[in-house]
């Protein structure tokens, strides 16, 4: 009994969990201690004490079976039930008929032994189960610990990830900023490339405008004179002479008009060249465009370098008519290729030993072929060395001395032809003999 109460207290941890029950159990413990003392000291009490003990056992068993709080003790209760029941039965039988009891005492003793064995066995099993449970609990605790560690690691990782993300975002912003700057620089470079080619053109443009303007001035002066003569002839009554003069005046007028338009076209072309591209494709006479830029480039170089001398040849396919292109952009490509061609022949001539016969020729030709338009710019210059041929379309690649070329001409040309017009820009060259660039445009 004492052991049982002690066990109950321990097992149920009543002290902390159920203080009311703790008091009752503690009371039971004291009571059973008292009963033990009474039983051992006062012989006559043996008649009553077992009944008190039985009552206490029944209460405990009843509570264990019905009360939620006592559930953990159920295995112990199962263990003691047989012993309690046999003891109770023994006492009851003894009380009712001592004879019967005496006859059956051995059976009761045997049953008591079996009940005791049962109790011990149950206790051992219970102990084992408890140990297993304890192990399980330890394992669970271990697992909890691990989970906690994992969680703390996870948190640490999350913090790190947040930090890294922040750093990456910053880097991304910096890169975006740099990219924007690069884009701005690129457009500046493109603009300066345009201006550089415009600079190359300036002298050519001046020459090309000066000539028609001279004609306009000269022919209008002639006409002024002719009108005076016309008046004189009319005064003299020479009608036929007057009619002849009038016809000349009319012819001159046409010349004035023609040259005025010529100058106008050149100015427009120049403006178109310096203006940023409209990006709009429009029907353009590619032959006129190529011819205009050939003349501008030629006169531009001639004006800059007095010793410059080259023949320009054209071979235009008149069946082309107009094609849909962005005239400013293709004009820029054609100009760039022609300027390069003139540069190549000039370079070759400069470096040839004196007395060598060399006739520098730049040829621009157009051809309609298999639904495509080919614009060829051919020069008999020094060609392109095979070791640099792969680099010529790369931005900033130039063979010209520092400050003379931006290295953007061909790369821009390549982009305009391929990306802007879905065409191809090809090069064919033989070192020391010729270079030929071909713009191939789909119709």
């Amino acid at each position: 009994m004492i052991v049982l109460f002690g066990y109950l207290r321990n097992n149920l941890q009543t002290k902390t969990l159920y203080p009311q029950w703790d008091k009752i159990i503690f009371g039971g413990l004291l009571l059973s201690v008292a009963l033990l003392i009474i039983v051992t000291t006062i012989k006559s009490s043996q008649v009553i004490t077992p009944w008190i003990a039985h009552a206490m056992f029944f209460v405990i068993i009843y509570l264990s079976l019905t009360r939620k709080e006592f559930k953990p003790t159920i295995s112990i209760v199962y263990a003691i039930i047989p012993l309690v029941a046999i003891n109770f039965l023994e006492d009851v039988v003894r009380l009712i008929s001592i004879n019967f009891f005496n006859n059956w005492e051995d059976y009761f003793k045997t049953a008591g032994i079996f009940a005791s064995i049962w109790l011990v066995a149950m206790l051992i099993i219970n102990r084992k189960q408890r140990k297993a449970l304890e192990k399980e609990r330890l394992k669970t605790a271990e697992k909890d610990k691990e989970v906690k560690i994992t969680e703390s690691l996870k948190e640490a990782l999350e913090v790190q990830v947040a930090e890294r993300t922040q750093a990456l975002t910053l880097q991304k912003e910096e890169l975006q900023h740099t990219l924007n700057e690069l884009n701005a620089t690129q457009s500046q470079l493109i603009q300066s490339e345009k201006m550089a080619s415009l600079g190359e053109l300036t002298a050519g443009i001046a020459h090309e405008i000066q000539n028609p303007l001279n004609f306009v001035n000269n022919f209008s002066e002639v006409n002024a004179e002719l009108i005076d003569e016309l008046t004189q002839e009319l005064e003299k009554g020479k009608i036929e002479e007057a009619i002849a003069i009038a016809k000349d005046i009319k012819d001159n007028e046409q010349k004035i008009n023609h040259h005025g338009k010529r100058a106008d076209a050149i100015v427009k072309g120049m403006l178109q060249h310096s203006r940023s591209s409209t990006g709009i494709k429009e029907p353009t006479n590619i032959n006129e465009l190529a011819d205009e830029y050939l003349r501008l480039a030629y006169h531009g170089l001639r004006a800059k370098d007095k010793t410059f001398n080259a023949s320009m040849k054209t071979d235009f396919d008149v069946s082309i008519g107009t094609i849909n292109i962005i005239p400013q952009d293709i004009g820029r490509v054609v100009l760039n290729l022609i300027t390069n061609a003139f540069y190549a022949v000039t370079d070759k001539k400069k470096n040839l030993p004196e007395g060598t016969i060399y006739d520098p020729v730049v040829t621009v030709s157009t051809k309609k072929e298999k639904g495509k338009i080919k614009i060829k710019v051919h020069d008999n210059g020094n060609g392109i060395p095979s070791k640099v041929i792969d680099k010529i379309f790369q931005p900033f690649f130039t063979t010209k001395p520092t400050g003379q070329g931006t290295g953007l001409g061909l790369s821009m040309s390549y982009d305009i032809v391929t990306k802007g017009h879905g065409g191809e820009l090809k090069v064919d060259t033989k070192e020391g003999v010729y270079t030929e660039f071909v713009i191939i445009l789909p119709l």
Partner: protein
Amino acid sequence: MKILVVDDEKDVQVLFEQRFRKEIKTGEMEFVFAFSGEEALAYLNSHEHEAVLILSDINMPGMSGLELLGHIKQKYLKPPPVVMMITAYGDAENFNTAKRLGADDFLTKPVDFTLLKEKLKTIH
């Protein structure tokens, strides 16, 4: 007086013919035109001593006016004809080169025809 005019602009012919219509009519002057340095040289080679004056544009595709001048003054049979240079660029470098190569006179575009007529008359 036969005058060879060299210029790559074809309308120069019409202009000269109209400007000098009176002189042409009276037979005082006769004009021949060439539209490139090469053409001018070919004409001079086939019509030796006929042209007495050459007016040349400096800025021409192919053989430039200055090259033509060099050819005429150095290789042409004596006496070399009078050569007047005309150019759109009145810069010192062209002027000096033309003078060094033996140009007799130097005019800039646009041509002042009144002045040109006076100059031609003094040569005559």
